[in-house]
């Protein structure tokens, strides 16, 4: 598609080839500044890849470009003219489509119905299913995928579902296609097909924005690279000027000091012992955690690094008793706890701080204090009822220990910032006096200052003899308080390092990049 840009004044030299640009775009969510004035160009008919760690602001920027969010300040320029999108539908009408990281298909409906969802071909006699089906077959044939349009989406493999999602974006004749981690669910051969499709789209003049954690894969396909870090654009270069090392250097940068491993004491006995643990998905066909073994000693902090889908969350949820173990043993202080309930594990000293604090960590209808005492209520009962005095003491202790900044413990939990909410979740579990604490992405969605405080808490706990196991998907956080770093890849441990390892080696072991 060609658009005559001569009638619009070009803001700068780049505009000739930039079909869509963000100028000084900032986005603030509550107290968190997700984007701090970013400039970003989508090059016409080429692939522009956006690199950055989790929380760097990639997805936020893409959602602004595709009309899902409105920027707090700054401008979006389409074909040289400023534009504002009120909704993603409006952006779609301008030819901008986004393929989200999480699939947005209705699994109970057929491929055909999904592709034409919301834009059914209507005739006097109802929907023209035959025509829809014909177009579907054409689209899918183009993508070299032999999928019957009448099959339900839930009966397709994850990779095929991804292809359907892509077909849907193509079916609206997008001229700008944003792909957020499109390969995370694809097999190697499916990735090859996708890349062939991307090259084909380029030749037809479609501009593509590509986001991926698989750096090498992205380098195969990209024409331009943009790196985001902590809401800022830190680097831009065309493909010919860059290599993996360049990307990693700009992605990771010089991090805020997140602490160092606590030293000057001996580790105690092994507290948590995992032996050949296997966790399957719901269908039982796929192993999410594959015969994994590890142990954590008293006073030791172990970090598990891995990409999305590496099995970190499943491992921790199984250790905490939420998911059943298919094989293997979990021992706490030498006692087998593999078959015990969550409550029994908490009572015997193993607790989990879950990844998604809104969904799994907090009761939104309760106050800060009620959330803090929830895991400990049994110990606060005197006679028939909970003792108000004991509960108050318990809450005050927890708040002091985890340095939660709250006006009053009687306020609703939702009145706190993300970082303080996270401290409440940690405080709730920590106040049960555990021997071992598991934290799934404890730094997710909190600002850098709160991160440092969370890690300081972990270091403090370890000094007091707590065994700490936490996961992260930000490589900089491995090199903070952890004594030992374990890298997980596809349900297995792919490498184990001491705290003196480099970021590049960790990323290499996770399957993210191979740096020589």
């Amino acid at each position, binding site marked *: 598609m060609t658009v005559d840009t001569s009638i619009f004044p070009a803001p700068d030299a780049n505009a000739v080839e930039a079909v869509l640009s963000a100028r000084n775009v900032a986005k603030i969510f509550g107290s968190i500044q997700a984007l701090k004035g970013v400039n970003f160009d989508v090059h016409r008919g080429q692939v522009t890849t956006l690199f950055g760690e989790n929380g760097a602001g990639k997805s936020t920027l893409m959602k602004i470009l595709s009309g899902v969010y409105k920027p707090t300040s700054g401008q979006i320029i389409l074909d040289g003219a400023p534009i504002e999108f009120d909704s993603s539908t409006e952006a779609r009408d301008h030819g901008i489509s986004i393929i989200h990281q999480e699939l947005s298909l209705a699994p109970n409906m057929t491929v055909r119905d999904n592709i034409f969802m919301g834009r059914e071909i209507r005739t006097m006699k109802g929907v023209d299913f035959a025509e829809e089906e014909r177009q579907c077959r054409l689209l899918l044939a183009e993508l070299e995928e032999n999928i019957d349009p009448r099959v339900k989406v839930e009966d397709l493999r994850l990779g095929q579902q991804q292809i359907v999602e892509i077909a849907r974006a193509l079916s609206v004749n997008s001229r700008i296609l944003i792909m957020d981690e499109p390969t995370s669910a694809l097999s190697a051969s499916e990735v090859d097909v996708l890349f062939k499709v991307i090259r084909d789209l380029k030749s037809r003049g479609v501009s593509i924005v590509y986001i991926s954690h698989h750096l090498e894969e992205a380098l195969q396909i990209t024409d331009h690279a943009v790196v985001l870090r902590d809401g800022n654009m830190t680097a831009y270069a065309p493909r010919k000027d860059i290599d993996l090392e360049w990307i990693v250097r700009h992605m990771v940068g010089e991090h805020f000091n997140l602490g160092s491993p606590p030293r000057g004491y001996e580790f105690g006995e092994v507290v948590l012992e995992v032996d050949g643990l296997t966790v399957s998905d719901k269908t039982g066909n796929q192993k999410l955690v594959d015969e994994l073994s590890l142990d954590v000693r008293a006073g030791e902090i172990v970090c598990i690094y891995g990409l999305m889908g590496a099995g970190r969350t499943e491992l921790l949820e199984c250790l905490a008793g939420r998911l059943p173990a298919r094989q293997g043993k979990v021992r706490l202080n030498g006692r087998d706890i593999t078959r015990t309930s969550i409550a029994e594990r908490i009572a015997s000293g193993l607790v989990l701080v879950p990844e998604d604090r809104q969904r799994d960590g907090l009761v939104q209808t309760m106050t800060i204090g009620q959330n803090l005492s929830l895991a400990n*209520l049994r110990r606060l009962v005197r006679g028939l009822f909970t003792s108000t005095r004991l509960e108050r003491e318990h809450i005050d202790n927890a708040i002091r220990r985890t340095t939660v900044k709250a006006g009053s413990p009687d306020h609703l939990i939702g009145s706190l910032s993300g970082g303080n909410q996270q401290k409440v979740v940690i405080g709730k579990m920590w106040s049960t006096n555990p021997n071992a604490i598991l934290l799934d992405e404890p730094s997710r969605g909190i600002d850098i200052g709160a991160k440092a405080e969370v890690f300081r808490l972990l270091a403090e706990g370890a000094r007091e003899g707590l065994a700490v196991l936490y996961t992260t998907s930000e490589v900089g956080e491995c090199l903070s308080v952890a004594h030992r770093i374990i890298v997980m890849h596809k349900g297995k441990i792919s490498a184990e390092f001491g705290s003196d390892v480099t970021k590049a080696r960790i990323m290499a072991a996770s399957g993210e990049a191979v740096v020589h």
Partner: protein
Amino acid sequence: MSNTDVSKLNPPAAKQKVNIANLLIEGRAFAALLVIVIFFSLMSPNYLTISNLLIMSSHVAIYGILAIGMLLVILTGGIDLSVGSVLGLAGIIAGFLMQGVTFNSMGIILYPPVWAVVVMTLAFGAFLGSITGVLVAYMRVPAFVATLGILYVARGIALLITNGLTYNNLGGNATYGNTGFDWLGFNRLFGIPVSVVVLAVLAAIFGIVLARSAFGRWIYATGGNQRAAELSGVPVPFVHVCVYALSGMLSSVAGLVLSSQLTSAGPTAGFTYEMIAIAAVVIGGASLNGGRGNVRGTMLGAFVIGFLSDGLVIIGVSAYWQTVFTGAVIVLAVLLNSLQYGGKRL
């Protein structure tokens, strides 16, 4: 529950700018009750008399007792459609036992004393409720469906036992030593009907349990966020079984009170009472999503419904209009609930 609990449920911002609108939304059930009482006392001189208030309260007692059980279930995020049927069946069980149990093999008829009848009826209600609880907690049957099933089963059993007829003579017989069943429905303690005293005692007990006990907190946590509650060590399945068992037991209490008031037990007693109980809970400010609500509000809700429908009878409004008014009040209550909770994440 005390006043401080209401303030706990509101963020600081809302507390600072207390205005008339907020106050009305907060105390809407109380305001509605006031409006109803004032309106009907103006319409009829007989409305606001001690004797009428006590009569109306003894009607409210049935709804109120059911509504307490319903509140427990709704707080966990569930719903119990079976309370009306269980109420009816409980009356039938009590009636059946009062008639004497015949053991053909031994050729004797056993007349259990009234206290034993009461205990057995309550145990039966709790048993029926715990079946629902097990279905919901362990078999993952949606509460709506599980309790709908129990609704039909209980009603069917009640019809089967009585063959569609009504037990009329629940007075007992002095020679068998099983008199006194009508005490619940007819007698007064210090001038107050026993049924109202029963309601007050139950409301007090469950009010304290919800506000002060660990079990009460588990109920709120289960309804507020089941996943978070589970990961905090709350025995979520146990909580589910308990609330449905308690709801079943409270339905039996209501069944005993009703059949005692009528000195008879019919298989259709309590028909559609589950809707009145749900309405009372909702008017009382509880959220159908679970996690929000308290006994005080629910009691106000029960009185709003009871005083409204009795008032309409007293001023001679047709029964058909009563249904329309009750429906309108319920919709209004839900509307106000969504106004109150709408701005917050549920």
